[in-house]
């Protein structure tokens, strides 16, 4: 299928690389710097636009129009909000643990940047195409628990402490079904490499081969990003703002940024692993990728603005007693499927 404009960013990269002599060390360093700058910009852009999208979608579902004051149809609202947050006072509670409290938001955003480095945004557009891509991604995103607990513990606030404890319990429990749900795909493709997984979906998307895996992934990812109906870490009706109760201004904004960066990441992973990544007819690959990510994001927004919140023990029950068996069953089914497939076509697979 012809795709026009797919190579746009790849050509630009080649051009820049060419300026510094192709394969020299200087070129590699320059490219790394540029790539990381682009990721930072992408996080900021994703967060700003996703926040606006969330508010708009929430508004539409609730028969409102959402933000509508700044710019055309309110498109600049989040920019203005970010400016306001930048200008706010940075308050450290008197009893807080200064270092832990202050570093937690930085960790959140730092981890997001690290994860986003391995996502294939288009054909040949993987900043770092690791051969253990998924493995690295899961390992790093599992660390996101720590800043939440740091925030909860460092604030020296009871609500924050409860929120932090909930974060640890919830994110660790849901990490396991999340990993297992991706394992089925890895079994089929026999690789951890993100670009290879996308290439393997040129004929059929894995959502069709792994529907159960996709469902488990979506639910676990909702919990992993602390979004409703699993937003117990924030749980505003019981814990006011959970782990973020004591945060103000820019530090709070970093958490917010991290939350939306995480939303972007889980959507991007779902798009890559289950929805065929940048594969698609006519349009350039990166546009296809953006469309698929937006679809996943909309799914998460839709859940959030429809469902009430689960209780903490129900959340644990669901994670351990429903999702984990389901994800294990998925692996088993995949294994059986591959075995049968290999019996029929012995040439394929290992």
């Amino acid at each position, binding site marked *: 299928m012809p795709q026009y404009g797919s190579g746009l960013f790849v050509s630009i990269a080649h051009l820049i690389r060419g300026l510094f002599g192709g394969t020299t060390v200087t070129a590699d360093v320059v490219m790394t710097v540029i790539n990381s700058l682009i990721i930072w910009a992408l996080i900021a852009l994703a967060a700003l636009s996703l926040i606006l999208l969330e508010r708009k979608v929430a508004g539409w579902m609730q028969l*409102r129009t959402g933000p509508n004051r700044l710019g055309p149809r309110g498109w600049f609202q989040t920019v203005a909000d970010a400016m306001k947050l930048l200008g706010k006072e940075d308050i450290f509670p008197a009893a807080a643990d200064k270092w832990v409290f202050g570093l937690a938001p930085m960790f959140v955003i730092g981890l997001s940047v690290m994860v986003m480095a391995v996502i294939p945004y288009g054909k040949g557009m993987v900043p770092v195409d690791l051969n253990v891509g998924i493995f690295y991604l899961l390992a790093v995103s599992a660390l996101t628990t720590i800043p939440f607990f740091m925030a909860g513990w460092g604030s020296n606030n009871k*609500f924050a402490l409860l929120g932090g404890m909930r974060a640890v319990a919830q994110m660790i429990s849901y990490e396991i079904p999340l990993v297992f749900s991706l394992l089925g795909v890895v079994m089929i493709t026999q690789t951890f490499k993100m670009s290879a997984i996308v290439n393997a979906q040129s004929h059929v998307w894995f959502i069709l081969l792994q529907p159960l895996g996709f469902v488990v992934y979506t639910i676990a990812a909702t919990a992993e990003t602390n979004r*409703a*109906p699993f937003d*117990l870490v924030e*749980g505003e009706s019981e814990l006011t703002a959970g782990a973020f109760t004591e945060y103000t201004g820019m530090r709070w904004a970093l958490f917010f940024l991290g939350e939306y960066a995480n939303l972007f990441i889980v959507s991007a992973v779902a798009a890559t692993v289950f929805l065929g990544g940048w594969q698609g007819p006519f349009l350039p690959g990166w546009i296809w990728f953006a469309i698929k990510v937006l679809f996943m994001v909309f799914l998460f927004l839709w859940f959030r603005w429809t469902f*009430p919140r689960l209780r*903490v*023990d*129900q959340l644990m029950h669901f994670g351990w007693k429903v999702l984990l068996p389901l994800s294990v069953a998925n692996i088993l089914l995949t294994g059986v499927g591959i075995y049968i497939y290999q019996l029929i076509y012995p040439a394929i697979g290992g």
Partner: protein
Amino acid sequence: MIKTQELEINLGPQHPSTHGVFRMITKLDGETVTSVESKVGYLHRGMEKLAESRTYTQYIPYTDRLDYLASINNNLGYVQTVEKLMGVEVPERAEYLRIIFGELQRLASHMVAIGTGSLDLGGFTPFLYTFRDREKILDLFEMTIGGRMTMNMPRIGGIIEPPEEFWPALNKFLGEMPGSIEEYHGIITGNEIFQARTVGVGIISPELAEQIAVTGPNLRGSGIKWDLRKNAPYGIYDRFDFEVPVGVNGDCFDRYIVRVREMEESIKIIHQAVRDIPEGPTFAKVPKLIKPSVGEVYHRVENPRGELSFYIVSDGSTKPYRLRIRGGTFVNIQVLPYVAPGWKLADVIAILASLDIILPECDR
């Protein structure tokens, strides 16, 4: 065994889910609540003392500010008490209008109850759907009397006649209501997460309810079929045909569903009242200056949040000698320390939401 320390948390007075300024001193063992102590009084305005320096008519606007989500019901309770004290006969048309507006206000109040109930469980969108429909009722009120929240609509001996355009607007609203209730069922009642959060949670046994003197939908949620409109009718409620919905288990879900079904019954009552309403005056002949004779009276009405009653001691002057308000919330809220322990922190919020408290009525 790992020994853990109990955590004491102040829920409120400023907390997103305490519906105003209510404070619960909650002791937690992990996430499990071991004890709850409720503190009220942050909104005390001395309503009963104020009555001693206001004339009978002047006190009507103050009753608006008891249960501000059901102000017409409060007004009605108060003016009926004074009418009972003076022996005033209210014209037929006024009685029917009182039923219509009282039930409209009950609908509006229950909408807030179920909407905020859903909000406290984390579901934001249903809250706005209920408020969308409440807005229509408030528009009807605004059209009739000019106020939206604090109506001050009934007067001693009558009620204000609504304008011409009220009746078509009311019919339009009644036509839209069944669809809206269907929608609440779709997004709240049928939702498995909502059911998981409420079914079996915070059970108030009938014995406990009777011990505490819980009234209103909370009592009926416990399975006791007691509704003053049916069992001790006031006004002309005995002329209407309606059911008294009751719950089975007395859990949060039962209290919720009783409210939704009461809304359906209220619509039925309004339909009947609109059908039967006679023409005629809406004001009885009462002196301009209300001056009841010496005596005392106790009158109770079924408010959306429990039984509201006024106890007036008159010394024959234009001002009440003593006016006592018994609000539903003030009594119902006592049930919390009995019900909450053993549940999770989030359940306490659910229980509180299902009790549907309103603090101005509690603190007065």
